[in-house]
């Protein structure tokens, strides 16, 4: 029998692919079903956020921050607003602080719900996706009532929030919390988290050791999945996060290996519970008063200087570095998108030779990237 000539296959995954979560392209070198090496290509969604920001006033930049991580826009708004406030040394009214915490945590739940649903879909379970969307819809309805927007809120602004939160909306949020936790999360765990096939697909797959994660600058649930207990809400509390009781869930290696896809996934599910905990406390304590600093709403003109501020978004550290030259427009804005740093570790995870094409999808999904934020 003559020798059969075999060769490796170069496969283009993306930019139009169902499970790259946006226009993301990975070139993978495959030997049959095994992935030998992968190379990520980004930039298909680049919109020059940083350059655009230089040509707009401080308030005009806010809507652009929405469109970075469009699944957790509140956190981006908050990160940007707080950076400018830090530059201006502006104190935000107490009520606005509470509102900001409530909406950011609600948005975190919405974002994690989407991550949960799409991850299930990546693994092949389509039903959890629709369950997650059903519950996410409740949050979006609340936001719609609050600020008229479902995705790009521009709700948190320099000096406070755009609209006051009404008693009715507070009651809606309370109702959502009671519905969501613990019953619905328990249902999700039964449906997907502890499903045998799901565990076999995600456990011991894409193991991300803590040192590798730290060296790549991975943050957020992806880092905590590797067992590193780092969360800016606890470590460097901003806003009023130091007033609340909550835990930081970290990966435990429960399903075989610390830092595998299942750990990263589970951290998100557990974080939803913690967010509900924070919202419940904030709802109980929310004081009456102003919801914004009227002066800051009329115009923002920070003094000369530069500042970096970071907060914990749904995907990790959302940081803004702003240089001001004393005018109404920022001289330079640099945004740190957590997805951008998180995705950089992908090639290291998939080029070890133990990854299959199906795992590729599982790993990309477990990093929970938003391409709008990767490219900005």
């Amino acid at each position, binding site marked *: 029998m003559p020798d059969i000539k075999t060769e490796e296959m170069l*496969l283009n995954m993306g930019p139009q692919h169902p499970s790259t979560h946006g226009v993301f392209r990975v070139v993978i070198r495959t030997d049959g079903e095994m992935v030998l090496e992968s190379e990520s290509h980004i930039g298909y969604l680049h919109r020059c956020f940083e350059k655009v920001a230089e040509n707009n006033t401080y308030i005009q930049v806010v809507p652009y921050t929405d469109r970075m991580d469009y699944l957790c826009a509140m956190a981006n708004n908050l990160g940007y607003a707080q950076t400018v406030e830090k530059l201006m040394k502006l104190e935000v009214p107490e009520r606005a602080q509470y509102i900001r915490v409530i909406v950011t945590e609600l948005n975190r739940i919405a974002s994690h719900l989407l991550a949960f649903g799409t991850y299930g879909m990546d693994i092949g379970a389509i039903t959890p996706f629709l369950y997650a969307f059903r519950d996410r819809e409740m949050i979006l309805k609340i936001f719609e009532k609050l600020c008229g927007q479902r995705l790009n809120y521009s709700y948190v602004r320099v000096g406070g929030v755009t609209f006051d939160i009404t008693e009715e909306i507070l009651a809606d949020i309370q109702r959502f919390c009671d519905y969501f936790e613990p019953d619905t999360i328990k249902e999700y765990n039964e449906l997907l988290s502890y499903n045998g096939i799901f565990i076999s*697909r995600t456990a011991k797959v894409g193991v991300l050791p803590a040192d590798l994660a730290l060296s790549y600058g991975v943050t957020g649930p992806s880092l905590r999945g590797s067992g590193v207990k780092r969360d800016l809400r606890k470590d460097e509390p901003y806003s009023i996060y130091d007033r609340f009781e909550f835990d930081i869930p970290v990966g435990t290696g429960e399903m075989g290996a610390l830092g595998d896809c299942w750990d990263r996934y589970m951290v998100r599910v557990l974080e939803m519970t913690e967010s509900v905990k924070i919202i419940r406390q904030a709802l109980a304590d929310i004081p009456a008063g102003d919801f914004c600093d009227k002066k800051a709403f009329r115009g923002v003109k920070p003094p000369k200087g530069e500042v970096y501020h970071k907060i914990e978004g749904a995907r990790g550290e959302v940081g803004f570095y702003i240089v001001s030259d004393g005018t109404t427009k920022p001289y330079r804005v640099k945004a740190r998108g957590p997805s951008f740093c998180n995705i950089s570790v992908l090639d290291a995870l998939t080029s070890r030779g133990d990854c299959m094409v199906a795992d590729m999808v599982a790993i990309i999904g477990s990093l929970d990237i938003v391409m709008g934020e990767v490219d900005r």
Partner: protein
Amino acid sequence: MSAAGVLLTGFLLLGQTADPAAPASGDAALAVAAQEAAAEASMAQGESVDIAGAARALARERGTNADQGGIWIEALWNQVIDPYLPFTVPEWLLVAVTLLLVCALVFGFINVYALFAVWLERKVSAHIQCRLGPMEVGPHGLLQSIADGIKLTAKEDIIPRLADRPLFILAPILVFTGVLMRFVPLPFGQNLTASDLDLGLFFVAAVGSVEVIGVIMAGWASNNKWSLFGTIRTATQMVSYEIPIGIAFVAVIVSAGSMSLQEIVAAQRGWFFHWYVLENPFLTVLSIVYLIASLAECKRAPFDLPEAESELVCGFHTEYSGMRFGLFFLSEYAAMYLVSAVAVVLFFGGWWTGLPFLDDLGMSPTSSPIASLLGFLLKASVFVSKAVFLVFVQVWVRWTLPRVRLDQMMHLCWKVLLPVSLVCLVGSTLWHLACGGSGLYGLPALLGF
């Protein structure tokens, strides 16, 4: 395109009528397969003469009319139509018309069923996912499938420029033909079958492989890397899972003493514990093995790797559109019914309700024509209902479970299902030798029931 499939099936039927001993004389490869089957069958008989004989005796005892079997249309013709015709119809015309009629009926059944099954799948998935599903076209969206079918046929027929044209065009036909041919020996009720082949079960298993060739052609001809991935996965999967399925077939053949689907069902007559699923514990396990393996053979979740949407976009039919895609779609749903119907034949008592007083309706030679007709209709509807229920189970599983990975799929097949099925085959055979066909693990016989 579908006409080719129908014609091929027609040829097959023709071969069957001409020479019942060699059911697949129309095709050289199939003839070889048939010879092998015959050799295997005679070997099996040689080893287990007693078993087969005992089963036959049992079947006769229960009043089965296995020997009176035949094409049911013939009976209809001889008794109802022919006597009242003013002229005699030549034999050859009769045969030709009958064959075409049978083909058209089977083909029509597949089409009507597929329309219903697509609707069922969409409805069931919708209700599992807290949605309503199609609601606009017809009551509760019942006519949605027809609208979709019209859309598919009216769509532009696209063949990629770099595709291998002849193979690309041939592939969906071959896949559909492979499925359609498997419907030939399949019963729809008592004596209600296109052709009751003596080697029916073997034929079902053998012809199923044609589908794999079509799939490989589709993936290769598309000239698309994702399609190629899907193809390799499909071929791996279907070839692997045919083995546990084949072993499940053999175990049932040992118990029934026949490969004819009609006779296998006939042997399960009586109380529901005479169904092979309750015959002995080994057959119970084998029925589960068969159901799992048939999910894989139909490329259904959790074994839908060939079409894994999140990984391979659409698998081997990524590049297909319009009615060519429609044919793949149709064959998928037809195959779902087919494996379910075979499961019903093998394990779940075929057309028997499991309650003798119902089954006996119209079965005695002295019963009135009305009773016969009622019994006939009852059996047909029982059979189809059972099969559609198993189709529902497949849909249910699909919308509940995630997808396994390729290596896990192979692990399940070769390291779990295959050893289990082999052990069960031996166990079932020994049990059958020891206890005979008393059913329900032999308990009723022990209790003198």
